């Protein structure tokens, strides 16, 4: 736990192995084969996108990586170490933070308290008993992030009183405040105001420049295409293609499986949240 914690400076992209490596993970629920040998590598210091049709297994893959579900077969490596089947708190301690597609916040804690829970990754457990809920710096950092997502005014409100989009933002904010090496975001932009999405993208890029690695599941193509260094497309439980956004976008398989061939009505959706990517 200590070891991963000290590594602050970003190692140059491409050096050493990938930060996260998923190999041949399968998982089925009764008759449903959610994952059929999914493999994925997230290089250190990159922003990776993970897209795919509804039900293609993206969230299930997230769950397996972060210890919420077990895999039937396959392995997950983090920074070269095998982490398959470790408990969520262990995975977190190793520097992986995630958000949930269907937001999960602590409804009866204040927004600020929600943030403070997440600030303790590098702490000995017994210290939690001997210290206050948050130090001045922690509160400051939390407030800064809240300000960024537009929730500072709600810092004292109960998190359960937030609107859908605000919850989404709060969840994102407290994963950010935890300051993990790898941030796994499951549809961070869903339900978020387009203008704000643009700012989120800015922030993600900024963090990326500081060395954070991202794995982002998103249906907002504009965002994915503009933000990601590398995009993987899942279909029926396995990764179909991985490559730079432009390539992936043009790949006929992707068009068929995900984007759709009939682009006659693209105007209705494609620009959703749209130009926010800033291109």
């Amino acid at each position: 736990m200590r070891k991963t914690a000290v590594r602050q400076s970003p190692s140059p992209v491409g050096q050493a192995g990938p930060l996260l490596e998923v190999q041949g993970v399968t998982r089925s629920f009764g008759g449903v084969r959610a994952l059929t040998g999914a493999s994925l590598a997230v290089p250190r210091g990159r922003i990776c996108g993970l897209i795919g049709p509804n039900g293609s297994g993206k969230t299930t893959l997230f769950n397996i990586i972060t210890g919420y579900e077990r895999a039937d077969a396959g392995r997950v490596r983090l920074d070269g170490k095998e982490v398959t089947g470790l408990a969520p708190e262990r995975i977190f301690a190793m520097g992986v933070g995630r958000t949930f597609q269907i937001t999960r916040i602590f409804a009866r804690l204040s927004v600020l308290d929600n943030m403070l829970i997440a600030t303790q990754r590098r702490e000995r457990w017994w210290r939690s008993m001997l210290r206050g809920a948050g130090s001045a710096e922690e509160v400051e950092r939390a407030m800064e992030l809240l300000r960024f997502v537009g929730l500072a005014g709600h810092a004292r409100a109960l998190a359960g009183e937030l609107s859908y989009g605000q919850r989404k933002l709060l969840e994102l904010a407290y994963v950010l405040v935890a300051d993990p090496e790898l941030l796994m975001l499951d549809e961070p932009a869903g339900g978020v105001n387009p203008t704000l999405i643009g700012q989120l993208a800015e922030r993600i890029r900024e963090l990326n420049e500081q060395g954070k690695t991202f794995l982002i599941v998103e249906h907002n193509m504009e965002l994915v295409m503009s933000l990601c260094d590398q995009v993987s497309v899942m279909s029926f439980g396995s990764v179909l293609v991985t490559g730079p956004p432009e390539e992936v976008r043009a790949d006929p398989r992707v068009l068929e499986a995900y984007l759709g061939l009939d682009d006659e009505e693209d105007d209705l959706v494609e620009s959703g949240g749209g130009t926010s990517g800033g291109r």
Partner: protein
Amino acid sequence: MSAGTLEMAVIDGILTGGVYALMAAGLTLIFGVLDMINIAQGIFVVLGSYASYVLERDAGIGLFLGLLITVPGMFLLGAFVEWAFIRRLGQHNRVTMSILVTYAVTIVIEGLLLLKFGSNYQSLSASYVTQSFHVLGHYLPEIYVYGFALAVGCLVLLYLVLFRTRLGTSVRAAMDNRLAAQLVGVDVKRVATITFAIGVGVTAAGGMVFGAVQPFTPNSGYDLISRLLTIVVLGGLGSVGGALLGAVVMVVVEDVISVVWSPTWAPVIYFAVLALVLLLRPQGIFGQREVRAQ
């Protein structure tokens, strides 16, 4: 220990289990639908016994016939309690709050019963209370057999109501997702009232059988409630069939242990079995689990 005794213990256990299931059926319904712990279930059982007792003593109405009056009567009482108190429970601290509210209801009813009937034991009498069927060399007490039949009957009825009627459909919807139920046109408040009322109404039948198999005082509810709660949890919250299975498992385990080993340790073993089952299946035997994390 003869094989006959063991066999008898199992038979006893199954029959008595039926009686417990009858008492627990209402609890599991209330538990599952209203997401609350109803401590008052014990006193409702006792109230059912007293209701049957009064009808029998003062009006000469037989125990089973009396159910035609006591069940609707308790149904109305249940509706009132839900309307007056349960409805006010918020979503926050719901478990604690429901325990406390129903505990308060318990002591009020207990106090009223004490005022009316005093703390002496009463019992229900009818010719079949001390008679038995002779089957394959075993004597089966009639009242237990009737109780078991009544239990199965009630549970089947409850099951049909839950799964074959519109009311049941709305009950299950309200139990699953309140907001969604509202939005598809379920009158959630009314459903809650009716469910609680049904739960309490069914308990009138349980109370009748309880009163027939053993004497009762207004205090008798306390020994019952923990048993009923464990039955319901063992079977799975909200599962009607689970209540029957839970009850039978519980009583058979206890009966067999008390016959082959010692009555003293029988409840300990039962509780240990309960803990073990819940460790392996936290949702109970027939309970459903929260489906997945997302």
